[in-house]
């Protein structure tokens, strides 16, 4: 990294430049480029750029593939900014082809970094190259398939029907054949189901005869007895033996099937920052017969932790192209700003490094509550008189805000100290959530076929209006520093919806709903109006309301899924409205109307 990278280019900050697209690129590569363009690191000015990305599709270097781009070398030579690859990231999924599957690319990458799938420990230049996950064409650009455990039942205790599963081809000869050819030895037809088939290519029967492989018939019969998907979702552990390339890993991760790696010398995806020992079990191809006893030796809490970690990693770094690309950029960014780089504890604990900014990486996992706030008296009051250009400025990360909790209030919100104290007490138990008073809900509008917004009273809610809410100041930083202009534009143009965006952001990070606390009902109508805004004239405006509905639908598109989550719970003081003397109650003002 130090010898082949020009750090001077990054003095202006971590910015990424993409060459203008001049030729056809594969659909996957164009998704990758679009993701970078939408990120906050993108710049269209090569002078500003720290890192360069080619607009020539280098993903697939399998000469037999239809996405194989020809004459890359001569194209590279024509690029005036190429500079022998310095500060360039070359992305590659497939290299080589049948029969050797060589790892090298068929052009000279010079001093460029390679982000490449299926790298071997030996080829990998640690701290410079990036081991990239292999992904399918179908991987969505944003959002992504949820980790299986989120939607399935009975995940804990973590045992599934089978202990260990695998279903795949065996190649009889060549790379990866040795391990796969011996899997049948530990297949026991009961809890260890390891299935291989010789059916590969057109002439497999002929080849099997030539090699005198007598197991093919038996193996094929066993193989046909089980369904791949069923096995994947019904096994506690999934064997990931070396193949020609390394793919089944990804599916196991999504399925919450703990990978048992039998791929000696394979550099695991994003190994620079991801601690795979928390989500996978290492076997050694040389010691295949130990695998059953290794997996049997793990305790229930260990298995439970491994399984949850697979799900966390999948959803945080792998489930969409956006996440994969952002992870690559963040890894390189941490290398450039060495002294700001986040510890492995941040990368490997929920919610992960993509939502934790460098400035906030000091606390090991969750933001910790601090008791300093609020002092009812003697609190310094700072008045910010600035050019308020945007409604988003309410979430500006003011350096003056030094407490962990931020109370966001509109100028005309009428709230008693009891209400504030109580909400703050609740927030201290849930410092990662927005805690507030008036709430709103999202719903799917089947008539318009889109997500929509409602303020009608109901038994559930999924958003808290930030006109009166407490949350961690860290979300102000996230709002200001992690959302690209694509998001904030919507807010700026409508001068509205900043609170909806904040709720999206927080739920996106925490995967939890906000928390509503009780408040005096008298203010319900007058103070917060039908759409919840304090500016009454404003809020009655039908246009304003439909704007919010449109915002919500738009945000869903940008996030790629609906991050909001509903809650049926309101938090009340322990003795709220109980038939005891008010004098015994701590938060008695809340009950006085």
């Amino acid at each position, binding site marked *: 990294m130090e010898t082949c990278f020009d750090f001077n280019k990054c003095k202006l900050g971590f910015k990424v430049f993409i060459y203008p697209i001049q030729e056809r690129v594969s659909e996957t590569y164009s998704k990758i480029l679009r993701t970078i363009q939408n990120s906050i690191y993108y710049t269209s000015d090569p002078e500003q750029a720290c890192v360069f990305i080619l607009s020539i599709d280098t993903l697939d270097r399998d000469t037999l593939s239809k996405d194989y781009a020809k004459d890359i070398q001569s194209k590279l030579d024509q690029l005036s900014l190429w500079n022998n690859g310095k500060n360039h990231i070359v992305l590659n999924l497939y290299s080589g082809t049948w029969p050797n599957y060589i790892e090298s690319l068929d052009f000279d990458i010079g001093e460029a970094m390679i982000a490449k799938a299926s790298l071997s420990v030996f080829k990998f230049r640690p701290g410079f190259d990036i081991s990239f996950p292999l992904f399918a064409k179908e991987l969505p650009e944003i959002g992504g398939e949820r980790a299986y455990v989120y939607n399935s039942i009975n995940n804990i205790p973590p045992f599934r029907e089978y202990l260990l599963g695998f279903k795949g081809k065996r190649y009889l000869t060549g790379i990866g054949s040795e391990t796969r050819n011996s899997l049948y030895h530990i297949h026991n037809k009961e809890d260890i189901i390891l299935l291989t088939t010789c059916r590969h290519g057109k002439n497999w029967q002929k080849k099997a005869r030539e090699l005198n492989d007598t197991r093919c018939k038996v193996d094929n019969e066993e193989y046909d007895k089980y369904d791949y998907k069923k096995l994947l979702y019904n096994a506690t552990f999934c064997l990931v033996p070396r193949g020609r390339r390394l793919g089944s890993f990804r599916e196991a991760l999504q399925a919450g099937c703990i990978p048992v790696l039998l791929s000696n010398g394979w550099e695991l995806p994003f190994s620079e920052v991801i601690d795979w020992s928390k989500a996978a079990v290492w076997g050694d191809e040389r010691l295949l017969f130990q695998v059953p006893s290794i997996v049997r*030796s793990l305790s229930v809490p260990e298995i439970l932790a491994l399984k949850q970690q697979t799900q*966390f990693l999948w959803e945080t770094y792998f489930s969409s192209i956006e996440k994969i690309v952002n992870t690559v950029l963040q890894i390189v960014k941490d290398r450039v700003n060495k002294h700001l780089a986040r510890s492995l504890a941040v990368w490997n604990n929920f919610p992960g490094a993509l939502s934790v900014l460098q400035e906030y990486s000091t606390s090991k996992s969750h933001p910790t509550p601090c008791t300093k706030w609020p002092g009812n008296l003697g609190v310094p009051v700072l008045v910010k008189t600035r050019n308020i250009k945007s409604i988003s400025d309410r979430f500006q990360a003011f350096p003056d805000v030094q407490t962990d909790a931020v109370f966001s209030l509109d100028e005309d919100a009428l709230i008693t100290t009891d209400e504030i104290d109580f909400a703050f007490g609740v927030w201290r138990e849930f410092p990662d959530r927005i805690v507030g008073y008036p709430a709103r809900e999202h719903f799917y509008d089947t008539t318009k076929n889109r997500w929509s917004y409602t303020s009608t009273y109901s038994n559930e809610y999924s958003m808290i209006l930030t006109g009166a809410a407490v949350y961690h100041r860290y979300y102000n930083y996230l709002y200001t520093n992690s959302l690209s202009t694509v998001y904030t534009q919507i807010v700026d143009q409508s001068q509205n919806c900043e609170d909806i965006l904040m709720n999206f952001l927080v739920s996106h990070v925490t995967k939890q709903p906000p928390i509503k606390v009780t408040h005096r009902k008298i203010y319900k109508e007058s103070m917060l109006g039908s759409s919840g805004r304090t500016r009454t004239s404003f809020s009655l405006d039908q246009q304003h309301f439909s704007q919010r509905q449109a915002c919500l639908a738009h945000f869903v598109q940008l996030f790629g899924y609906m991050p909001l989550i509903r809650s049926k719970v309101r938090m009340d003081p322990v003795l709220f409205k109980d038939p005891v003397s008010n004098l015994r109650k701590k938060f008695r003002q809340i009950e006085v109307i």
Partner: protein
Amino acid sequence: MFSQTNCEDISDPKHLFLRSENSKTLELTTSSPGASPRDTRCTYHTCFDVYHCGYNDKTRISVYIYPVNQYVDQAGNAVTLPVSKEFYEMLEAIADSPYYTNDPDMACLLVPSVDLLNQNSIRLREVGQILASLPWWNNGNNHLLFNMLPGGSPDYSTVLEVDTGKAVIAGGGFSTWSYRRTFDVSIPIFNPLIQPDKMPQKSYLEKRTYLLISSQTSLHKEYRDVLHEIEKQEPRFLFIQKCPTDERTWNFSRRCKENVAYDYPQILQDSTFCLVVRGARIGQPALFDVMSAGCIPVIVADGYILPFSEVLDWKRIAVTVLEEELENLIQILESYSQEKIYELRQQVTFIWQKYFSSPKAIALTTLRIINDRVFPYAGKSYEEWNDMPNTKTIKNPLFLPLRPPSAQGFTAVILTYDRLESLFKVIHSVAKVPSLAKVVVVWNNQKKSPPPMTSWPDIGKPLKFVKTRKNKMSNRFFPYDEIQTECILALDDDIVMLTADELEFAYEVWREFPDRLVGFPSRVHLLDNTTNKWKYESEWTNDISMVLTGAAFYHKYFSYLYTHAMPVELKTWVDEHMNCEDIAMNFLMSNVTGKAAIKVTPRKKFKCPECVNTEMLSSDLGHMIERSDCINQFTRIYQSMPLKSIEFRADPVLYKDDFPDVLKKYKDIGML
């Protein structure tokens, strides 16, 4: 730099192989074969023979140490210097460790007793010959060599320049070019001149005079110039070097700025950050000095493989700055908050003491790293390597924010002895809850058999019962196979007051907080100022820290923990006293999750409406004393108070709102 020891100096060697009478004198001739050159392509999977390491239940490698021999050339002159004190300590540490075996044929790893710590004090060619002559050398396979100072003048290689074949090198100055990842181990350079007892430990909270000190004596001119520039502008930067009076004789314990002398390494304790810049060698002993003083190292050595970086997270120990960023040093250091500085400082001291502070620590850490490569599934985790053991960091076992799908429902586990009438009433009332999936009755009476299946109420949901072998309170928290949902409702056979709406709502609350205990009547623990003991409180308070498990929802996983992972002493206490199993569950859950229980709805009691809550009767003092006693006992067993008090409860969103009842989903919420 390492002190030489004659074998006679070592008083009473405990180990046979170290005794001088066992050492042989062997002669090398010029024609003795040398070892083959270091295999630069080695990785763990290609050069480390695992078949020798075998599988054992201890998941531990075994290490053999060759006897210490004398080697002489044809003229009879010694080829090697006597073993240094440091190397001797390393060998001794290995021999005293559980890794040690005296059978070379059983060994996974073999350590030659040739001291290679300092390349400057060995004869390269002859050492290669010695290695090749070792009886089990086999081209270095599974041999471990320790070296702290590699290379020599003028170009200072970053790796030991002895022919070592396929041997693993634990080296103190690897760069990205020489380090064979997954194979070699990068170790710290031990400095015997540091005497920790002469340097009293300062508290990490203490304020330091300087922001930054540079104290290395042989800095490259280029870096010296940059530092002089910084010195001019930054008064908090102390730039000290070799004293002018010490030009000829090397004096470790003194450093000077012009003519002002400072005690070294004590002066390092006066600075927040201490600079460690690469010199002729990329690995610098200064790193060891600086860390021993509890000063945060600022490492400026591009491509240096930091000691034990395979397992240690250096981002939490040191500041790494690129060589070309040296001029911006102050700006970078100023971006560190006081909090971050405290964290780093504590980490520096912890890491130094645990892994660096003695040759023994260095040798054993190296073995542990290799051990974990061989048995990765039993290896130490990131936290075990990097977290200070005394700071109690809670890792919630259910750390994913999962919300179990509502379709799954819950299993009501009812503990009963023989109150059939009341039990049937409870079964009938819980059957009305829509999300009930199954009822499991735990029959805790060994003298009486449960009535025949035909006489049980027909509730339209599966009903199973399990007979226990002993009447124990803990039986209620056993993870029975019959429980097939994640959510359990623990229910007593006399809880007749709860409405279906209340239970259904509580189940929904549990789904939002599946790692917490969700119940109805609550209790709180208070510290009695006069006795300094914990007290159990059942009055109507503004706080809660426990909920009763007479009717409470919780995750099945905690049944597993209660049965298999709770301190034995605690479990025995509960079973002997036939009481406090609910307090034990509250303790267990708060202890592993760090979270408080959640009280749902205003319910203060849930048994028969006409009876008075016994816990509220002052006449039942004995009961209250016993409950308080439980809290104090459990706190002692856990060595801390895991319970947390909160000031809120969970109600339905529209509870008590002035709003038509028809629109409320949970209207039947009882009062008391």
